[in-house]
């Protein structure tokens, strides 16, 4: 399935872009699996998504846990803990 993935703040700076369309393999159906999948892209990605850094995820503008399931057409976002106010 195809999903849209957005990156924000220091994650965006580390991967060097803010948006991409990804065609996922059939076995990638949760946020947790997507993180592991992204972590295989190389050192920068591994450092971000290997689970050692606290990274929040949202699906279609809702904050979700790592067990949340993905469906085709979702807008997924990865970002650090928020620091507004």
């Amino acid at each position, binding site marked *: 399935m195809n999903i849209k993935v957005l990156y924000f703040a220091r994650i965006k700076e580390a991967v060097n872009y803010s948006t991409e369309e990804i065609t996922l393999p059939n076995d990638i159906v949760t946020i947790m699996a997507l993180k592991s999948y992204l972590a295989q892209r190389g050192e920068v990605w591994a450092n971000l998504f290997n689970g050692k850094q606290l990274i929040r995820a949202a699906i279609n503008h809702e904050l979700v846990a790592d067990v949340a399931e993905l469906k085709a057409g979702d807008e997924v976002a990865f970002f650090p*803990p*928020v620091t*507004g106010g």
Partner: protein
Amino acid sequence: MTVRVQKEDFDMAAELTTMRLSEKSVGAVVSFVGQVRDMNDGDLINTLTLEHYPGMTEKTLQAIENEAKARWSIINSLIVHRVGTLKPQDQVVLVVVSSAHRRDAFSACEFIMDFLKTQAPFWKKEATSKGERWLEAKLSDDAAHARWKQ
């Protein structure tokens, strides 16, 4: 119940007056303003840049206002949050809450700020005398958010 995310500055006095006069049942208006400090962690701040997630930010802030309205007897609320590059003493955020009696407005205003700090997708990057750095989330903000859980 209004939410605005904007680059432009805001006029706190005008917003307070609008909120105060919006309904004849208003007996109390409570506000919070956050502004950029001149120093953080011992370093001088040149600029503070705020990034956000358009769409999710507005939805999150509206959900926080709705939750405040469900918990307290409030008449109206306003959240204005700025994005882009700011300087020390620039205004960052405004929360205004009106109610018939003060206690509801005080509590709701504090609740909205505690939730905004930990839930709304904003990120701050400061340019200091030692270079640029992203701010880290604070445990004290998580604790302030957690105390509202029932």
